[in-house]
């Protein structure tokens, strides 16, 4: 189990509110790490963050914000138009 120094920037990642993302600083790492958190993770430190977050230990969890997928390039329209005379 990793040792947690602090957790910040919590935000729900879905409307069901069973996942959230955050930034975690572990004692074992020099840098802050982005992390996804839920309550059924096999790692104890993730479940600990989940439980602590739900009781507000790291502050408020920001609401989920729907991010629309970027528009896909319309390659279908960019396909060349094939014309020709079929004489059978």
């Amino acid at each position, binding site marked *: 189990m990793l040792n947690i120094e602090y957790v910040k920037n919590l935000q729900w990642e879905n409307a069901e509110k069973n*996942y959230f993302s955050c930034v*975690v600083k572990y004692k074992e790492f020099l840098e802050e790490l982005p992390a996804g958190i839920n309550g059924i993770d096999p790692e104890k430190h993730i479940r600990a963050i989940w439980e602590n977050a739900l009781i507000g230990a790291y502050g408020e969890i920001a609401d989920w914000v729907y991010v629309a997928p970027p528009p896909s390039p319309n*390659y279908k329209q960019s396909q060349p138009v094939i014309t020709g005379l079929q004489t059978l």
Partner: protein
Amino acid sequence: MASSLNGTGITFSDSTTQSTAAVTGVTSLNGQTGAIVNTTFQAVGSIAFLANWSRSGYVSGATVNSANTGYITAFTGSWREIAYPFVRNGNVTVPGAATAQTNNATTVAVTGTWRVMGSATASMFDGCLTQTYAFAFLAVRVA
């Protein structure tokens, strides 16, 4: 007779065959020493080949920040662990692209922190010119 590797396992020079993982006795592997133990998929240290595969192009909210930090950072979408060879019979298969094929892939929730070791992006068209995108990542869980 030299040792050989075949579909049954490893056949040694004394004709014995090892077809399952050693339970005890192996204390080093590729320079790593210590007891070799089974691991839990998705636990720290797991390596997974993950892909989101969507005809709409992207799984909403799923972002991969590999260009900047090399970490998968948000997980709104469902990610699929590709559970069988990516190329089958010379044709690229489409894990999880259709509901009928979901039994071929395992949907996993990506939690913790995963380091992207390599990534690939591809798009293709079917016979109806419907475009399919694929984003696949080889990642190891680090925290």
